[in-house]
């Protein structure tokens, strides 16, 4: 284990570079092969050991929340899609659930089943992407990591092919609407989903063989980047990060939405809180999502997929001035929407739509977790935090 060289006060929010301390400042800059998007971490290095790390976000700020005040609820769904650009289904579901909760619209059972299936498939796809890019972080873009990357993406493409069959788009589907879904599934989709998830379940075994049960991989991730459970809770970290540190909290089980209340969702926690624990939690979550899809894919009830009449005008959905917070469990944690209705266009836009992104909280633990590790460890830790910059910056 690398030794801690100097005392670090992570609560310092102004960078005080003391030249007498003889530290090297290295920008793990916005342009870097493995910062998962445009993200900058300013590292103060003593040799190879990080003494202090200051994260800078905001390079991908696109003003989505401001757009929400101008575009109507119908129009904002495809725009908010692009926040967490790795799991778009979650973004759409967060927004439409917020609107439905405010208007107290009842979503048909079939739509709830569809949303659950899509959410779980999207979770598998997102974790596959995470696994591939994490392999590249550890093993290099030219090397064993690239092999794992290609395997994970090969599997992910099959899931995206399923979504393409239903919605028409591999990515950024705009398949949810306030009151239900816009696209319905077919028996062919059910058949293809069953074959696809069986293949993926077998391939996950292969990934474990090449990757997470590998001695070199364990050396790189065991004991690295330990995140204390209490620190995670105080920083607002949720999702696989918190569960790997022992925090037993999963919105699908504790505050069920869609049809999770009728299913038995197993929640996996580890107590170590290091990178290996986070990997194991995510791998187990993938298997669990596959199990959930396998359970419900054949029992989707008949019925409509939209609870209200589909509208032809952009001001079809109007929400009066009231406030509500709804949240769902995205692959990164708790994705929440705080909605204050009664905005412009006579209530057809939001007055304020705040998106509580889990990645922003994940990134905020960097000043606490990085110090004491080497630069290689920093990359490994950043990989397991799984930040998506589109979500961090919105």
């Amino acid at each position, binding site marked *: 284990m690398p030794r801690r060289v100097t005392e670090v006060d992570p609560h310092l929010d102004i960078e005080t570079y003391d030249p007498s301390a003889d530290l090297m400042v290295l920008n793990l800059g916005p342009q870097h092969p493995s910062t998962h998007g445009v993200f900058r971490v300013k590292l103060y290095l003593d040799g190879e050991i990080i003494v202090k790390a200051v994260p800078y976000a905001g390079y991908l700020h696109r003003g989505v929340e401001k757009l929400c005040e101008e*575009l109507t609820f*119908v*129009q*904002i*769904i*495809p*725009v908010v899609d*692009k926040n967490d650009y790795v799991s778009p289904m979650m973004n759409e579901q967060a927004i439409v659930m917020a609107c439905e909760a405010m208007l107290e619209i009842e979503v*048909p059972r*079939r739509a709830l089943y569809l949303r659950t299936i899509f959410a779980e498939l999207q979770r598998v796809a997102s974790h596959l992407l995470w696994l591939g890019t994490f392999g590249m972080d550890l093993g290099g873009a030219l090397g*064993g990591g690239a*092999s794992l990357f290609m*395997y994970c993406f*090969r599997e992910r*493409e099959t899931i995206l092919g399923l979504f*393409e*069959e*239903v*919605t*028409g*788009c591999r990515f*950024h589907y*705009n398949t949810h*609407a306030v009151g*239900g*879904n*816009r*696209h*319905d*599934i*077919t*028996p*062919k989709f059910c058949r293809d989903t069953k074959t696809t998830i069986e293949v993926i379940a077998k391939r996950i075994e*292969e990934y474990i*063989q*090449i*990757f997470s*049960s*590998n*001695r*070199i991989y364990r050396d790189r991730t065991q004991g690295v980047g330990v995140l204390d459970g209490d620190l995670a809770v105080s920083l607002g970290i949720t999702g696989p990060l918190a569960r790997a540190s022992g925090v037993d909290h999963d919105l699908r089980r504790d505050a069920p939405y869609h049809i999770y209340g009728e299913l038995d969702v197993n929640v996996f926690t580890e107590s170590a809180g290091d990178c290996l624990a986070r990997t194991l939690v995510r791998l187990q979550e993938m298997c669990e999502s596959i199990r959930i899809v396998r359970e419900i894919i054949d029992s989707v009830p*008949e*019925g*409509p*997929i*939209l*609870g*209200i*009449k*589909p509208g*032809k*005008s*952009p001001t079809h959905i109007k929400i009066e001035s009231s406030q509500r917070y709804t949240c769902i469990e995205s692959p990164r944690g708790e994705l929440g929407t705080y909605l204050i209705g009664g905005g412009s266009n006579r209530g057809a836009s939001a007055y304020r739509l705040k998106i509580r992104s889990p990645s922003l909280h994940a990134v905020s633990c960097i000043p606490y977790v990085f110090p004491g590790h080497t630069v290689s460890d920093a990359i490994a830790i950043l990989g397991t935090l799984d930040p998506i910059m589109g979500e961090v910056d919105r």
Partner: protein
Amino acid sequence: MGYFIDTARAMAVTMRNVFRPPTTVQYPKEDRVRPERYRTSFALVHDASGDEACIACLACERICPSRIITVKPAGKRESPVTGKKRNYLEDLTLDLNACIFCELCVQVCPTDALIMLRELAKPALSREGLFLSMERLYANESLAHSWGTGSRLMEMQDPKRGLPALEPGREAPPQGVDPIADGVS
């Protein structure tokens, strides 16, 4: 040491994948088959009687989140097919540079005039090449259409769909059958 065994196992996985068939498609020499509902570029179509379907109602322009559609109505004219006076379109431009392919314009079109395509158009070499004018939109009509037209999407999202019939002696419409994909005529 354990390193050797794990190295051998990792090497076994990669060697096993050497003997799997490649999963990549050599585009543009070959192309993968796109599903029925695949949505890419746009086209303006004529209706069944051969008349221009667009009535310049500006629904697509109003709903577009990226505000890329500009519609110029031409006012009422006599239709060459039915002989009645109806609205016609003078110009419709769609800037594909900024389109986010959300399908909302297609969904709100009352006459199924604006539809999306299933066949990939050729990539453009300049920004102007992606700016779809009315001529290009009508020219795109000959390419393969996506399944999702306005009326079909509205029908799929009907809140009464799939519910038991209200009239006795009449069966509920079949649920979950995609007439094109499942081969049902």
